């Protein structure tokens, strides 16, 4: 059973389109995250939700909108895609507080052409 699963794994789309990435975790964790990994492998946190509540919202263009229907799901919707949005997007989950590691999904490679 996959602990944190993301779909789709690959996404190729044209500039200006709107797309969504879905994430689900079956670990019973309270908190979920979206990270962006650029071409140089830098990982940057974008958003975090705890029990459906947005708790971390880094400096991200408002074309990116996360949605968490329940604590096991966190989706990322991106409007008006730009070339610079091309990256690998990782979903992760963890316990909310305390010293715990994250469990990551396998990533969604987004290519905007």
């Amino acid at each position: 059973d996959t602990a944190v699963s993301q779909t789709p794994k690959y996404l190729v789309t044209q500039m200006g389109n709107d797309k969504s990435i879905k994430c689900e975790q079956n670990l019973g964790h309270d908190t979920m995250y979206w990270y962006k990994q650029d071409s140089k492998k830098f990982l940057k946190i974008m958003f975090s939700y705890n029990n459906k509540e947005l708790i971390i919202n880094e400096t991200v263009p408002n074309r990116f909108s996360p949605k968490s229907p329940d604590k096991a799901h966190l989706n990322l919707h991106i409007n008006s895609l730009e070339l610079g949005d091309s990256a690998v997007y990782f979903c992760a989950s963890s316990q909310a507080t305390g010293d715990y590691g994250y469990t990551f999904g396998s990533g969604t490679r987004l290519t905007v052409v």
Partner: protein
Amino acid sequence: SQQGEEDPQALSIQEGENATMNCSYKTSINNLQWYRQNSGRGLVHLILIRSNEREKHSGRLRVTLDTSKKSSSLLITASRAADTASYFCATGRTGGYNKLIFGAGTRLAVHP
């Protein structure tokens, strides 16, 4: 901005040798964690060391933490070709919800 700086950026060794990667960070932390990322895959949690700990072991991994120097090191002993991957340190902030800030990573290549 990135919290951690990792050194070296790339490391190439032979099987059986030890690999040491270093990580420096800037602010106070609750814990420091190391992750491995194989090419085209997600990150896998390796080990967590709390701010009040100085050394931790897990199998062939040894992590040290020096909070006075704001630095950590990851030692992989008796490396194997399967250890080839990128290794990232990540710092957990003090107080509040978990929020990991990642370093830039070290690319390790272990040659048979």
